[in-house]
Every structure is written in structure tokens, then in C-alpha cells.
């Protein structure tokens, strides 16, 4: 655990994460692809942001870089006050473990661990005891009380995703990144998950950044940011599905 990450909480500048002129280039010369082309964006604490954009727009790359899973070619990203480009691989891992929660589209759970073990995994990895009251709160909120001893293979897709959301919430992280969290679910189950995430922001004060191309999902957020060709082209506050759909048509893609 680093002193830098600790101080960042105390400084608490109101921002959970931000990117400054973030650039990510793949390949070189003729094959060069600019996945991120000077993205500057802030994510406030306690807010729910959707990153929207067509396939290949760079939205996943932005999230991966913000979450410390990938590194930038140029510019900076911060979690709180911590400049991720200054961290070693090991410290990035510790930062992810202690400050960030993740929900992926699929394959969110370790198949050999039970639901509760998956939920507490980041804390177990850190050797920390979970805050039991918070944990109970999370588990009850997502309604998993009677499923904690099951293994992922014994859970439905929706239940698995709820376990994943619980894991992201359990350590009370500074920010949660969700990558198409409902992409593999039917619409009813998907709506449930989105509601949980909404609740996490409203009732638990969590910060969520969600990558999606589903306008219905984006409508759950406080704010939608639109990415095209590695640039931020627009953003909407309090998006509705219609507004988002409109905006996307406007962008001239699918």
C-alpha cells in the first residue's frame, strides 16, 4: 500500500478520476491507430457516468487506461490525485485491488471460488478483513443472501452479474468501472443490474463509470459522454434513452 494513494483520499478534490490529454496509439507508421486522441475528461465523486460510442471509438480503451489495466502513450490519468503513469506494475495492481471495483461483460467470477469468496476476493488478496456491516448491506441490497455459498456454475447469468457488482461494491472503492455489464443478459435481468448500480450511487454514495453502447443502459446514468474516433465529441446530463439514441444517430453511426 502506498502513501500516495492514502494521501489522495485525504486531499479529496471532489474528483474520483480524470484523464488529461490522454493519448493511446497502437502500431506505427501506416498501421498506426489512435485509439485515444487527446481525451480530457473528469469523473466527479458520487456520480454515475456512461461512456458511449460506436465500436472502435476508444471507449473501452479509455476505461482500461483509467482503471490502470492499460498504459497511455501520452497524457495522464488520475485516480483521485494519483497519477497512474507514475506507478509501477505492482503499485497499479495494489491500486486496482484497494481503490477500484470492476464489473465486466462476462467472465466476472473465479469459477473455483464460492459467491461470497468472489465478493471478498480483493480484500482477501490484500489480507484485509471486510467491513462486515457494509458487506451485509451490499449483499442484502443485491439480494444474494441465500446464494453466498454457491459456486458460479450454480448461479444464473443474472445472479453471477449481481455477485460481480457486489464484489465491486464490497471494498467500498473510490470508483467502479463497468464494461458493458449487461451485455450478456436479457433485458429484464439487465435492468435489475442497472437498478442495483443506480442504487449503489444513490444510497451508498459510490462512483461508477460504465462503458456501454446500449442507450437504455446509459439512461440509468447521471451523465453520458460520447466518444468517436478517440475523441470526446459530446456529453449529455441526465440522459434518457431517447436523448441518447438521438445523439447517437446524430453522430452518424448505427
Amino acid at each position, binding site marked *: 500500500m502506498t502513501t500516495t494513494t492514502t494521501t489522495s483520499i485525504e486531499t479529496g478534490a471532489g474528483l474520483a478520476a480524470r484523464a488529461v490529454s490522454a493519448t493511446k496509439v497502437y502500431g506505427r507508421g501506416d498501421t498506426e491507430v489512435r485509439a485515444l486522441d487527446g481525451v480530457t475528461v473528469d469523473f466527479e465523486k458520487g456520480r454515475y457516468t456512461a461512456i458511449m460510442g460506436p465500436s472502435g471509438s476508444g471507449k473501452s480503451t479509455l476505461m482500461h487506461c483509467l482503471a490502470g*489495466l492499460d498504459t497511455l502513450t501520452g497524457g495522464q490519468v488520475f485516480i483521485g490525485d494519483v497519477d497512474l503513469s507514475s506507478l509501477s*506494475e505492482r503499485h497499479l495492481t495494489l491500486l486496482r485491488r484497494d481503490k477500484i471495483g470492476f464489473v465486466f461483460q462476462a467472465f*466476472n467470477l473465479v*469459477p*473455483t*471460488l464460492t459467491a461470497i469468496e468472489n465478493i471478498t476476493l480483493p480484500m*482477501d488478496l490484500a489480507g484485509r478483513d471486510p467491513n462486515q456491516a457494509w458487506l451485509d448491506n451490499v449483499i442484502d441490497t443485491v439480494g444474494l443472501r441465500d446464494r453466498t455459498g454457491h459456486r458460479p456454475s450454480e448461479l444464473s447469468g443474472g445472479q453471477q452479474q449481481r455477485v460481480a457488482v457486489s464484489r465491486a461494491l464490497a471494498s467500498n472503492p473510490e470508483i467502479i468501472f463497468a464494461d458493458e455489464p449487461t451485455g450478456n443478459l436479457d433485458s429484464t435481468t439487465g435492468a435489475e443490474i442497472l437498478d442495483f448500480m443506480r442504487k449503489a450511487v444513490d444510497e451508498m454514495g459510490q462512483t461508477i463509470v460504465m462503458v456501454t453502447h446500449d442507450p437504455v443502459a446509459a439512461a440509468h446514468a447521471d451523465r453520458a459522454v460520447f466518444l468517436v474516433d478517440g475523441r470526446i465529441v459530446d456529453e449529455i446530463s441526465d440522459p434518457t434513452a431517447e436523448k441518447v439514441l438521438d445523439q447517437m444517430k446524430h453522430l452518424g453511426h448505427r
Partner: protein
Amino acid sequence: MFKLTVRNLLRKKIRFALTTGIVVIGVMFVVGVFALTDSIRSSFDGLAGDIESGVDLTVRSPLDIGDELDRVPVPQAIADVVAAVPGVARVDGRVVARNTFVIDGNGDAIIPKGPPALGFSWFPTQFFLIEGHAPTGPGEFAINSTTAADHGLVVGNTYGISGPTQQRDFELVGIFHFGDPNEDKSLGVTAAAFDTTTAQQFLDRKGGFNELSVAVEPGADPAVVEKAVADAIGSKYEVINRATKIKETQRDFNQFISIFGNVLLAFALISVFVSAFIINNVFQIVLGQRVRELGLLRAIGATGRQVSRSVIAEAALVGVFSTVIGIVGGLGLARVLRAMLRAGGFSLPDGPIELRARTIIFAIVVGMGVTVISSISPARRARQISPMAALSDSPRLTASSLSRRVRVGGLMVAIGAVLLGLGLFGGFDTKPLLLSISVGAILVFIGTTVLSPVFARQLARAIGWPIQKLFGVPGQLARENAARSPRRTSSTAGALMIGLALVSMAGVVGESIKQTFVDTIDNSVQADYFIQPASGGFDPTAGFSTEVTDKLAALPDLDLVVGYRFARNSITVNGSTKSVFTTDFAAGTRHLDPNVLSGSIKDADPLGSILLHKDPARDLGVGVGDTVVVGFPDGKFEALKVAAIYSDSSIYDNYVIDNAMWDRHFNRSELIFATASIRGYSKDLPESQRAALLASSAASIERVTRQYPTIKVENRVKFRESQQARLDSFLITITIFLGLALLIALIGIAVTLALSVFERTREIGLLRAVGLTRRQLRRAVRWEAAIVSVFGALLGISLGLVFGVAASIAIPDTAVKSVAIPWLSLAIYVIVAAVAGLIAAILPARRAARMNVLDAIAAE
């Protein structure tokens, strides 16, 4: 389809290299052993012909049982008779004896390791002088050039030679090449040569010859002369021609090389068997990873048969490739083995390493057989993959049901156990015995592997429990990963299981032998000193002369010295061939007490009786006072009275005669062992008096034995220690050989783990994303390997214990009477297995840790 097979192989280069590598090791070993033994054999076959050049016919006494050197000497009178036969150009009486040790300039005996120390009468067509002259007169000898060079023997110097009956000084007058004019082909024997008269006397031939070498006059027909000689010498002697003689010489050597080759081959086949386990495992895993792809093939129209054929074809390609590399590598390995054996003290001839057609065929059978047979069950499962697999989210192979596993595995173990039991206790001859035991063991091993997935999950969890306690989440991941695929864990551990089963079995048998020995020394041996050949073993071909024991017996410090002799398969008892042991009936039991059940040894008539162990007595249906007919190598028979029946065969073996009886029928007088006791010594004496007696007697003995470097004398404590040390070093040798199987098993663990890591790419990515550090990830992979290794070790040791105890019970009491289990060694094996697992996992763990988190998450 075939093109796809090839592409598939090439795409996964590392996997291909590892699979191939495992098969290559097996093929290499088999080829190496065959090529080495073949080349040793053929260079000896050539030598056998060289040695007999110039000898057309050989005249000697017939020999029905016993050692070649037990032939009754041919007297000079017969030589004269043969010389007078028309067509005979020349008759040379030849003398040869074992136990003729030259003592070098430093006073150390020159003792070859393995081959005998021979004494000869000078024979010009066999010995080719390179320095000095042939020995003439009673004080001269010549030596083969390798021995002279290795031990710095110089023409003109005088050296002591310890012969079969006495030790004397001789002047070295000549150095010769043995068997070949251009190079010494002594193959590790030391060859001391004397003139014929000296040889007859010094080598104890009682005025006769071992055999007569006859040269036929030029132009005469050897067959005609052979017939004439046969008529002249009568039925008491026999004549053979050169071809027969060469064949006999080759046959004798072949027996030795076959034993040596068979032992090596056994280890080679064990390594092949272990490889088969790993190959099968790898094919199964790889198949599991390709289910979706094969499902796609089925969806676009490939038949089930085509799919399964492509799996077998892939295996066959691996087989072909490995066989070719294995043959080339095997030729190299043969050289390495030869160099290693030489470094270990075995003298092996030079010459090209031979690759015979049979070796190539065997290599193909092994290389192709192992891979293709290993791919049969994966291929059958591949056939069952449905086209739907291509569309399914996480396609899986259907696993065979547990109850079927229990039935099949249980049946195999049961049949294997019955075969093992039959082999051990059924009283078979050597060949069916070995067949029954090896097929039984193979069935038990395969059956256990089929059966073990049933309990693999629970056992792996149990083994992993302390690791989880110790290492937290990485420990838990290791534990759960080891338990998640019981089938894979079982077959990965299977290879290690076999190796450790064999090592533990050897350990149990070895410990039992040791225990038997210690029990015997403590309970049945009353002697204070033990006189043995300097090489330290009970080697019937490395005896010492009675001159030593006579001198010791003359010491006032000692009250009794008893000498013992032994000859393998050299007498017949009521018609069947047996080994015989000798002692001094009158006094021997004071030193070595075989626990007499009935009759008396002390009062037995040395020249009219025999002692029997209770088992042969029962088999023969005789009791004390009954008579058995005993035949000897000299062709004579005697009716001997059973004077005593005893119960402890670990000292005297099964049949005992008196030394006087031996002298009557055997032409060799060397002892293999002797014991001595201190005058006035008793366990009841005070400690200080005992120490004083031990010290003074040791000093007296030392004054005698100083002149006899071919023997060593040890007191009780030392003797016990040195014999235990000998057994230990023998066990270590076996363990090192079996270590090869363990090495292959570890490679198997590494390969399986690498494939598992690859298979779990996404899971690893997820873990890394949520905060598993690289160090924690490496730790999880390493401890998973440790758990699998310990799982295999526990299975192997359990089987080894059962095998070992069964073998210890089955081995005759002569060698193993009490069963002992080396718990400490077994515990060490488990720890070694765990550590080895950790080491095997280093590379897969590193590979897992290097995985890019994003790639891992995105992996399909």
C-alpha cells in the same frame, strides 16, 4: 483434414516441442540401451574369435553343473595321449584361475570393479608381448598392458601376487596386449600370466590343466582329427572344435551383458510407461481446448470419424517426429552411458555404437505406440463432440461417469493385484514371473489412475488445507485449482505416482534387507571379527586364500577362525541343482548359529552328512537321519545323511556341507568369508577388559592382514556399519535410475500446468484485474503444482508400501526375513515431491505472471 492436423501442430510450437520432448526421452533411452549393449556384445564377439585363433580343438573334462573353473583338471598324461594322435601338430596345456590379485607398488591390491582378476599360464596366441619377455621360471610374471598402465607397474620390479591358495612375490618381466596384437582387449579384467609349471602350482591346478588347446597339422581335416582325439581320450574327457568354443565364450559373456542390458532396459521401459501417462494427459487437455474448433468442423460437415482420425493423425505425427529425434539422440545417449559406466569403474570396450534394424523397429514401436495408444481415448471422445459445441458458450467434453470409473478402475486394480500376487507367491519360473509382475503392476498403476479422480478432489483439498491457511487467497486458489479437475490432477500425478511407487518399493525392500541383516548379526552371529574380500561383498568370484585364515588361526589372541565357501548352482540334491554353502561342522556354529531345530551340527560327520534348512527338508520329505544323494561338479555323487535341520536361512542359505567335503569335490579352495573370535572374550566381561582385548587382538590381526591387501577385517560394529552402508549405496543407485522416471513426471507436471494456465487465461486476467499481484499469482501456480505432486507422492508411496511389503514377504528368507518400513525416507519423498513440484511450476508460473491483463480479459 490432414493439412489442418499439420497446421494445428505448427501453430502451437511450444506444446508440440514439449509433447515431442517427452516421447523423445523415452525413445532415446530405449535406443541408447540397445545400441550400447549391441556394440559391447559385438566387440566381445569379435574378441572371443580372436582369443581362440590358433586353437583348433579343445580337450577338457565334462561339466554337468557348476562353475567353468570347477572342471576337473586334465592331467599331463592325457596331453601326451592327444599329442600322439595323428594330425595333431601341437598340444598346449592351459591354466586359468580367478582371484589372482596383483599388489601394486603402494601395497594396494589391484581389484577390478566387476570383471574378475585372472591368472593364466602363458599362451602366445592370446598374449602379445609389447615389452620385456614371456615369463619363465617360478619367480616371473607378465601383466596385460592396461593394468600395467593404470597402476604404474614397471618391468623389472617385484610385486606381490595374491593367488587362490597363497601370496607370493614375482618379478614383472613382460607386458602384453590381451587378445589382440594391436590393443589390449582385456575388458577390465586384470590378467597375470606365468609359465605353465608355475601357473599349475600357484593357481592350484594340482599338476593338471583347465584344458588342452590343440593345433591341427596344416592340411589335416579338423573334423577328422577331432574324431580321432575323441576316440583316444575316452569318455572321461571331451573334445570340442573352435566354433563351439567361441560360441561358449560368447554365450558366457552374453549372459552378463543381458543382465546388464535388461536392467537398463527395465528403466527405459519404465520411463516410456511414465511418458505415456503424460502424453495421454496432454492430448486430453489439448482436446478440451479445441472442442469449439472441432465442433465447428463437425458443423461444417466433418464426420465424427474424420474428427477422431485427425486427433490420432496429430498424435502419429508427434510420434514420427519424436522417433526420428529419439533414435539420433539415443545413439548419443549410448556414448554418454558408456562414458558414465566407465567413470563408475566398469571397463567397457571402445568401438562404434551400433544401430541394428531391431533397435530401429523397437524405437518405432515405442515412439509411435506410446503416442498413438495415448491418443485413442481422446480420439474417441473427440468423435462424440457435437456440432452444437461450436455455438455453445463454454463447450465441454462429456466426462466419463464416476461409477464407470469405479467399475473399470477397480477391476483393473483387482486383476493387477491378482497377477502381482500370482507372480510373487505363485512359484513361477523367471519369465512368467516377470511377465505376471510387470503386467500386474501396469494394471494396478493404470487402474489407480482411472480410479483416483473419484477421490482426487477431496484428497487434493485435504493436502491444500495447510497451504490455504499459510498463504491465504493464493493458497486457496492453488488448492481449488488442484481440486477443480480431478481427472487432470489424477493423470498428472499418475506419472509421479509410478516413479515414487517404485522408489518406495525399493526402499521398503531395502530396509527389510537391512533389518534382516541387523537381526541376523544381533541374534545369530557370535563372532568378533569378519574377514571379507577387500571389495567388501559376498562375491563368489572374489575369494581369498586359506593362507590368511591359517595365519590368523595361529594367533594366540584368537581362539577360533572359521572359513566359509559358497558355490551357486553347483551341486545337485536328489537330482535338482542347488547352491551350496560350507562351514566347519565341528566349530562353525560357535560363530554362526542357524538355529537348529533337530539333529546336531557339532557332532555331524564332516565327510558323510549335509545340513538342510527346514523348507527344502520339507520339500524333499526328509528328516534328520535320512539320506539324500548329492552330485558334485566333478561328476561324482555321494549319499549324505541329513545331520541337522535349521530354521534360519539368512546365514547358511539352504544346503550346507563341511569344508572337507568341498575339498574332496571342488577344484577351488578360496573362501568367500571367514569369522574369528577373540580368546577369552565374552559379553559378560567388564567394559575395560573387553576394550583391552579388542585393542590387542586388533593389533595382532593387523600385523597379519597388512600383508594381504586383498582382504579386510572388520569388528562387529564396523562390519554392521559397512554392510548397511553397502545396502544404502545400492539403494541410492536404484533411486537415481528411477529418478529419471521422476524427472519425466516433473516435466509432465510442468507441461500440464502450462496448458492449464493457458486454459485459464481469462480467469487469470480477471484475478489480476481485481488485484492479484504477480507474486501472488506465481505463488498460486507453484503451490498448485506442489499439491498435485504431493497427491501423486501419497498415491505412489501407498502403492509402493503395498508392493514393498508384498515383495519382502515373497522374497526368500535368505535375503529378507523381517519386513521394515523406512518411514523417514518415505516422509522425505513427500517433501521432495512437493519441492520438485514447486520447481516444475517455476516456468508455467512465470508465464502466467507475464500475461498481459488486458489480453487475458479479452481472450476468447
